[in-house]
C-alpha cells in the first residue's frame, strides 16, 4: 500500500507539468477558439533556450529562466497571435487546426536551425539544489519536483482568480463568447485574445523547462508526447473547465507512475501501453466522456457577419476531348519518363508516385469527406506490415499481399470510423491522432506487425507472370499503372454517388439526412476507402524499399503528410500529385543547395498558414490566378483595341468602353 502511495506522490509532479500545458490549451481555446497543437513545440522552444543559455553558455539560473520562460515564452505566443491566429479568429475550426498543425511541424525545425542537431544531454533544472530531498512523513520529493508542484498550484489559483474576480478576466470570457459582440461594447477583443496567447505561451514555456530534466536529453519528440498528455487532460476538463483540466492532468501523471511501478516490466503492457497511456486516455475520453461530445466548438456566433470565404470554383464540365487529351498526355509523360530518366531520377519519380497514392487517401478523406484524419500513416503502415508479414511468413506472392494489405487497411479504417464518427471537427482529428500514436507505440513494435524483435521485415519486388519487377524501370511502369488506377478511382468516387453525398453532408447535414442519406454509412465508406488507398500506398512503398520499416510510417510524419496535401490543395487530384512531387523533390533540392533538411518542414509548415485564406490550396489558387491574369491581359488588349480605331478622339467614350470591358472581366472572375 505504501508503495502505491509513493507512486502517487511521484506522479504528482509529472501531472503538474502536464497541467501547465493543458491549462494553456484551454486558455487559448477559450480566448481565441484555437486548439493549439503547437504548444508542445512552444514548450520545446523554451526548453532549448534554457539549455543553451544555462548549459552551453553557463548563465545563472535566474537570467536563463527569465530569458527562456518569462521573455521567450510570451514573445513566441505574441508573435504567433499577431502574425497568424489574429487573422483566423472567425475562420472555421478546421482552418485553425490546420494552422496549428503547420506550426507543430515547422517550429521544432526552426529551433533546430539555431540549436543544432547534436544531442543535448542532461537538461539542466531550474532548482538551485536539484536533487535535494524533502521528506514528508514517510515520503520523499526532490526539490525540482516540489518546485513543479508549487508553480503549478500558483498558476491554477492565479488563473482562477483572474477569471473570476478581475475585469480583464471577465473580458476574456466575453471574447470567447463572441469577439465581435464584445468589440461592439468597446473592448479591444484583439488585445484580450493576445493576452490569452501571452499567458498560455508563458505556461507552455514554463512546462517545457520544468519537464526537461525528466528526460535524458532534449528532443522535440518528447514534447509531442507532452502535448498529447495535455490534450488528454484538457479533454478531461471538456476543453473549458480549468479545475477539471488540472485534475485530469494530475490523474494522468499518477496513472503513469502507478503503471510504471506495478505492471510487469517484460510485458507489452509495460513497454507499449505505459508510454502511450496519454494517447489511450485521450482516445477513451473522446469516445466516452459525457458532455465532451456535445460541446459545441468555440465559434463566433457573429461569424456569419463576415462575408463567407470565396466558394470553390467547381471544375467546368470537361468534355470528352479534354479528358482524352489529359489521359493521352499522362500516358505520353510516363512513356517519355521511362525512356529518358536516369537511374537516380527514376528512383525519385517512383517514390513520388507512391507518395501520390498515399496522398490521394488524404484527398478522399479530407478533400472530399471534409474530415481531418491524422492517422493516415498508421493505415499505410497496416498495408506495409501486412504485405511484409504475409510474404515473410506464408510466402504469399507479393502482389497478393499488397492487395491483402489494402483490404485490411480499409477494414481497420472503417472499424476505427464507427465509434469516432459521432465526433465532429477537431475532436475527430484528435481521436485519429490518439489512434495513430497508440498504433505507433503499441501495435507497430509487435513481432507480428512492424517486426519488433524479428528485425526489419524484407519485402521482395513482385513478379507478374514472366515479368520481373525487380528493376526500377519495370517497377516504374507498374507504379504508374497503379497510380493511374487510384486516380481513376478517386475521380469516379468524386463524381459518383459517394462523392455527391459527401458534398451534400458537408453543405448541410440536416438537409442531407432529411433526404434519406445515412451520414454514418457514407462517412464510414469514405474512411474505409481512404484507409485502403493509404494501405495500398504503404504496401507499394514497402515493396519499393525492400522492407517495411515502422519509422517510415510514424504518426508525426503522417501529420506532415496532411499539412503538405492540405497546403497544396486537398480538393483536387492535381493537388495530391503536386504535394507528392514536393515531398520528394524539395528535400533533394535542399540538399543540392546545402540547406538543412529541416527546411522542408519549415517551408510547408509555414505555407499551410495560407490555408485559411485559400482553402482551395496553392495549386488551384495558382491556376485561378493564372486564369485571372490571362483574362486581365485580354481585357487590357480589348481596351487598347477599343482605343486604336479612334486615335484622333482624345479620350472619352471609346476608352471608357474599354475600361468597362476590363473591369467586367475581372469582376466576373472574382465573383465565381
Amino acid at each position: 500500500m505504501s508503495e502505491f502511495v509513493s507512486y502517487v506522490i511521484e506522479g504528482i509532479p509529472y501531472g503538474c507539468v502536464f497541467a501547465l500545458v493543458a491549462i494553456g490549451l484551454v486558455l487559448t481555446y477559450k480566448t481565441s477558439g484555437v486548439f493549439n497543437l503547437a504548444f508542445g513545440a512552444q514548450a520545446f522552444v523554451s526548453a532549448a533556450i534554457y539549455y543553451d543559455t544555462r548549459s552551453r553558455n553557463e548563465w545563472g539560473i535566474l537570467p536563463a529562466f527569465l530569458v527562456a520562460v518569462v521573455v521567450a515564452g510570451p514573445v513566441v505566443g505574441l508573435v504567433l497571435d499577431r502574425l497568424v491566429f489574429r487573422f483566423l479568429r472567425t475562420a472555421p475550426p478546421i482552418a485553425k487546426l490546420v494552422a496549428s498543425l503547420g506550426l507543430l511541424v515547422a517550429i521544432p525545425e526552426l529551433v533546430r536551425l539555431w540549436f543544432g542537431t547534436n544531442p543535448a544531454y542532461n537538461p539542466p533544472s531550474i532548482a538551485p539544489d536539484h536533487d535535494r530531498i524533502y521528506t514528508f512523513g514517510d515520503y520523499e520529493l526532490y526539490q525540482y519536483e516540489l518546485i513543479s508542484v508549487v508553480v503549478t498550484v500558483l498558476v491554477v489559483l492565479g488563473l482562477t482568480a483572474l477569471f473570476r474576480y478581475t475585469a480583464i478576466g471577465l473580458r476574456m470570457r466575453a471574447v470567447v463568447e463572441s469577439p465581435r459582440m464584445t468589440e461592439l461594447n468597446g473592448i479591444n477583443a484583439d488585445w484580450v485574445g493576445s493576452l490569452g496567447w501571452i499567458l498560455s505561451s508563458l505556461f507552455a514555456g514554463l512546462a517545457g523547462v520544468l519537464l526537461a530534466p525528466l528526460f535524458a536529453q532534449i528532443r522535440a519528440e518528447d514534447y509531442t508526447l507532452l502535448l498529447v498528455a495535455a490534450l488528454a487532460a484538457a479533454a478531461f476538463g471538456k476543453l473549458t473547465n480549468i479545475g477539471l483540466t488540472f485534475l485530469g492532468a494530475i490523474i494522468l501523471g499518477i496513472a503513469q507512475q502507478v503503471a510504471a511501478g506495478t505492471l510487469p516490466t517484460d510485458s507489452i503492457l509495460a513497454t507499449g501501453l505505459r508510454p502511450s497511456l496519454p494517447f489511450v486516455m485521450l482516445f477513451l475520453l473522446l469516445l466516452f466522456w459525457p458532455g465532451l461530445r456535445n460541446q459545441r466548438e468555440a465559434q463566433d456566433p457573429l461569424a456569419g457577419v463576415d462575408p463567407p470565404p470565396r466558394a470553390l470554383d467547381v471544375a467546368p464540365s470537361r468534355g470528352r476531348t479534354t479528358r482524352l487529351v489529359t489521359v493521352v498526355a499522362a500516358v505520353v509523360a510516363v512513356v517519355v519518363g521511362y525512356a529518358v530518366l536516369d537511374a537516380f531520377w527514376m528512383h525519385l519519380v517512383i517514390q513520388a508516385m507512391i507518395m501520390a497514392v498515399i496522398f490521394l487517401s488524404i484527398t478522399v478523406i479530407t478533400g472530399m469527406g471534409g474530415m481531418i484524419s491524422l492517422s493516415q500513416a498508421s493505415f499505410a503502415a497496416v498495408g506495409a506490415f501486412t504485405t511484409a508479414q504475409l510474404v515473410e511468413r506464408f510466402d504469399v506472392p507479393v502482389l497478393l499481399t499488397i492487395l491483402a494489405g489494402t483490404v485490411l487497411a480499409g477494414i481497420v479504417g472503417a472499424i476505427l470510423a464507427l465509434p469516432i464518427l459521432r465526433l465532429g471537427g477537431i475532436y475527430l482529428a484528435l481521436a485519429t491522432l490518439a489512434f495513430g500514436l497508440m498504433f505507433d507505440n503499441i501495435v507497430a513494435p509487435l513481432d507480428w506487425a512492424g517486426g519488433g524483435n524479428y528485425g526489419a521485415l524484407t519485402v521482395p519486388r513482385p513478379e507478374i507472370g514472366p515479368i520481373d519487377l525487380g528493376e526500377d524501370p519495370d517497377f516504374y511502369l507498374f507504379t504508374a499503372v497503379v497510380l493511374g488506377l487510384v486516380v481513376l478511382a478517386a475521380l469516379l468516387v468524386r463524381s459518383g454517388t459517394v462523392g455527391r453525398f459527401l458534398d451534400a453532408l458537408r453543405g448541410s447535414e440536416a438537409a442531407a439526412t432529411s433526404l434519406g442519406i445515412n451520414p454514418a454509412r457514407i462517412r464510414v465508406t469514405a474512411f474505409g476507402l481512404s484507409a485502403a488507398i493509404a494501405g495500398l500506398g504503404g504496401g507499394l512503398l514497402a515493396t519499393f524499399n525492400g522492407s517495411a520499416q515502422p519509422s517510415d510510417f510514424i504518426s508525426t510524419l503522417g501529420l506532415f503528410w496532411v499539412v503538405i496535401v492540405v497546403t497544396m490543395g486537398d480538393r483536387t487530384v492535381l493537388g495530391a500529385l503536386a504535394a507528392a512531387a514536393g515531398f520528394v523533390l524539395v528535400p533533394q533540392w535542399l540538399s543540392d543547395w546545402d540547406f538543412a533538411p529541416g527546411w522542408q518542414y519549415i517551408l510547408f509548415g509555414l505555407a499551410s498558414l495560407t490555408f485559411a485564406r485559400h482553402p482551395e490550396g496553392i495549386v488551384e489558387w495558382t491556376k485561378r490566378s493564372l486564369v485571372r491574369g490571362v483574362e486581365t491581359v485580354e481585357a487590357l488588349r480589348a481596351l487598347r483595341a477599343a482605343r486604336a480605331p479612334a486615335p484622333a478622339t482624345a479620350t472619352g467614350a471609346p476608352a471608357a468602353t474599354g475600361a468597362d470591358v476590363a473591369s467586367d472581366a475581372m469582376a466576373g472572375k472574382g465573383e465565381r
Partner: protein
Amino acid sequence: MSLLEVTGIVKRFAGITALNGIGLDVEPAEIVGLIGPNGAGKTTLFNCLCGLLHPDGGKVAFDGVDITGLPVHRRARLGIGRTFQRMELFPGMTVLDHLLVADRARRGEGGLIADLSLQGRARPDELERARATLAQVGLEGDGDRYVEAMTLGRGRLVELARALMTQPRLLFLDEPSSGLDRDETARMTDVLEQLREERGLGILLVEHDVEMVDRVTSRVYVLDQGTLIASGPTAEVFADARVREAYLGDLV
C-alpha cells in the same frame, strides 16, 4: 388511418417546456396549417416530427407505423420530406445536382461499388426525372446554375424541388414564403395546390403569410408558447377570438 398522427409531444430544453403535449394529424391530399407567433415552438415541433430532435414524450405515427425512435434518414426513406426555415442548400452544387442527390438518397441506390464500376454518373432516366420536377416548380432553365447565385425565392423552390425528388407522401414546409416577393409567393401557392391535387401529398405548413394559409389549407392548428390553443377548419379558427388575440391581430 391518418397519414400523420402525432400525440402528446413534449420537448423540454433545460427546464423550459418548448412543446407541451402537442397532438395533430394530417390526412393524405390535405394541406394543414401550423401557425403561431415566433417562438411558439413550430420549428421545434417540425424537428421532432422529422427526427432532428428527440421529443421527451409523445408518439409520432406515419401511415399507422410508430416512427418516434427512427433517425432522420429512415423517416425520409419512408416518404417524409421537408424544407427548412433557414435555407439549407448545398453550396458548390448545381440545382440539378441537388435533385440527383435527393433521387439517389431516396432510393438508397448507388455506393462505393457502383461508383467504382462506372455506375456513379447520372443516368438519362434520373436526369429526366429531375428535369420534370424542375419544370413542375418552375425552375426549367436553372438546372445548371449554382445555388449560391440564385435569389432567395428561387432557392426556396430548389429546396421544394429537392424534397419532391424523394417522392414524399408527407411534406413538412417551414415558412416556404418567407423572403419571397408577391409574385413568388403566388407561384409557391400554386405549386402547393397543384402538388396536393396531382400527387395526393399531405402537407404540414408552417407559414406567417395568413393569406397563403387561408388559400391553401383546409385546417389549421394554432400554437402559442408550446401549447395548441386552437384547431379546426381554417375559416373557423381564423374567426376565433383567442387566436386573434394571440397571433392574428387585425390581419384577417
